[in-house]
């Protein structure tokens, strides 16, 4: 994770909108403090703590293939958590991402199956649908000025109903048909759901996509004008507009990025499991949002990073699988998960408080 070491450039502190970009404090603080005040440092330490804990408590975790499994679980969450985090930095919220994943997978599957098309036709149609959902969310939020919580709650419910009703209408069942014997499936599976052999350990391709997306998102956020716009619209929309930031474009495109993430994971699920059940995906939106918040993004917007959510998703995957590797009584599973996550968030909070207080 080289990105965490970028401490010098002034750009990466969220530029306060307006002429008073910096009040001078940033430059005067010692390097150590500046590094520790980064949004991802708390979650990084939390993730290390959880990792070390399970290394000791659960012997199977020490095995390379177990780590590959944990990273796989983290990556399927993480690929959506990154754009959700960017959106949150931009001051908005998306509750529809979890069922959006399933909508995308259902679209791709049904279009290719029902029209007997090469599966890539379905994949592209699903991308259009997912970006369209993102556009609709963003457009509604920008045009109506309603809180994104309400708008995306609406979309969440609409998609849940549409997923079920359309699937039933089209296929006659509540799950899609198996597309694994159709043209293009093997190709698409290579892109979205294959594995690589690294030193005898099978690592899922989603792990690489996840890290690649994180690197790109981090670069965009820290080094491009678009990144500045994202911080600006999340920090203070009005002053951002006053200094010429295209607020509507930035917000709508951020929602569309979440759509892209949902599409990608949807395609992974489709090509990994061949069929999709229309009722899935409910509740996962909260995990994406927790991943971003644990990763150091503020629910109020204007602050956060793209690397923090990577550790946020990792922590979630680590705790979820670690409990199983440790062989603890599974009746307590959810309770363990909650306690460990709260603990991790508290470490995160404590580090941030301790470092920013000076």
């Amino acid at each position, binding site marked *: 994770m080289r990105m965490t070491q970028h401490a010098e450039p002034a750009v990466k502190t969220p530029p306060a909108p307006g002429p008073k970009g910096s009040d001078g404090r940033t430059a005067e603080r010692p390097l150590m403090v500046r590094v520790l005040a980064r949004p991802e440092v708390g979650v990084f330490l939390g993730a290390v703590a959880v990792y070390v804990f399970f290394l000791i408590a659960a012997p*199977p975790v020490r095995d390379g293939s177990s780590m590959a499994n944990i990273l796989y*679980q983290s990556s399927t969450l993480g690929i959506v958590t990154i754009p959700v985090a960017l959106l949150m930095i931009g001051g908005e919220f998306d509750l529809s991402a979890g069922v959006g994943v399933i909508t995308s997978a259902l679209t791709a599957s049904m279009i290719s199956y029902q029209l*007997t*098309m090469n599966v890539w036709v379905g994949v*592209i149609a699903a991308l259009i649908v997912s970006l369209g959902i993102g556009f609709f969310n963003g457009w509604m939020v920008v045009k109506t000025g309603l809180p994104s919580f309400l708008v995306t709650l609406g979309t969440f419910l609409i998609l849940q109903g549409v997923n079920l009703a359309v699937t039933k209408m089209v296929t006659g*069942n*509540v799950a899609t048909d198996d597309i694994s014997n159709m043209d293009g499936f093997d190709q698409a599976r290579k892109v979205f759901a294959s594995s690589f052999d690294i030193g005898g350990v099978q690592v899922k391709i989603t792990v690489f996509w996840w890290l690649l997306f994180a690197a790109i998102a981090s670069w965009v956020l820290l080094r491009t004008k678009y990144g500045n716009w994202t911080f600006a619209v999340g920090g203070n929309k009005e002053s951002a507009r006053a200094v010429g930031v295209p607020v509507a474009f930035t917000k709508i495109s951020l929602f569309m990025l979440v759509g892209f993430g949902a599409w990608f994971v949807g395609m992974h699920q489709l090509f990994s499991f061949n069929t999709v059940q229309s*009722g899935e995906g409910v509740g996962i939106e909260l995990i994406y949002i927790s991943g971003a918040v644990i990763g150091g993004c503020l629910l109020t917007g204007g602050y956060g990073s793209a690397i923090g959510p990577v550790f946020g998703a990792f922590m979630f995957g680590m705790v979820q699988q670690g409990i199983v590797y440790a062989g603890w009584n599974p009746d307590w599973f959810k309770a363990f998960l909650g306690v460990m996550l709260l603990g991790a968030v508290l470490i995160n909070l404590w580090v941030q408080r301790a470092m920013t207080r000076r």
Partner: protein
Amino acid sequence: MDRSSHPRSRRFVPVVAVAAAAALTLAGCSSSSGGKKSEEGGANASAGKATTPRMTVALVTHQAPGDTFWDIVRKGAQAAADKDNIKLIYSADPNAGTQSNLVQNAIDQKVDGIAVTLAKPDALKGVIGKAKSANIPVVGLNSGLSDWKKLGLMEFFGQDETVAGEALGNKLNALGSKKALCVIQEQGNVGLTQRCDGVEKTFSGKLERAYVNGTDAPSVQSTITAKLKQDSAIDHVVALGAPIALIAVQSVSDAGSKAKVATFDLNKELTGAISKGTIEFAVDQQPYLQGYLAVDSLWLYKNNGNYSGGGEQPVLTGPAFVDKSNVDVVAKFAAKGTR
């Protein structure tokens, strides 16, 4: 996304995407294998049509949206309704309070009969009493084998989850299993827990349990993988639903384990997996039969005063085993989504 990102380019993206999709379509991207074209048509079971007066029956279940199992129950109920000249009102909610409101709703509509699942019997007690005082016959199906008589239901159609679990446990013994993993996809669901308890009762080896998040397929896959790695002695994975079983097959190969997969309940992909041998066997409680018999029984009661089981005994729809030896017969029906 680079520095030159510009509002105008936004209009461009959808245009390009649509054009690309159109081009692909025109370029003859049809698949030469699989797809709708290869599917053979087939209507649902039908046995003529009754000429008795039109009646209305409400079926109220605790289905969570989009579950393949309940879709089969509903198809069975619909087939009976079509045959018996019945208007079927189907409604469902996994939340017990909401389910009892749905039963109240059916009473308010003055239906001629109610079929209800008793996943949480206590929550439905009051409203079932109201149906009785409104002289609406009520039958039970699927869940509630131990409570239907207490609540004063007329008949019950279903499988004893514990008995089904016991049958599966015996089968594992016969296959020489030493250690099995019971995968529960919904923490706190009584029926699922009873199945695992039943397996534990008769199984002579050791039964481990794992909870997975049923609404997130990748998470189901990694959790089962994790459990198989944690305990390499596990030689059988017991899934409690067909979609979970299909995911478990991938976990087994990911974990490099030699475990076999067995499951409760069927769907059309699962019958394919049984023929291929990737899934060893399934215990079927015949959900189509449950829906069909429940609705048909209300017609019989109204038109001929009959009670299945005489109001004393439940009518068992399972456990029926489906394995390689009989899967071909079942697969035909599963392909239509009715088994």
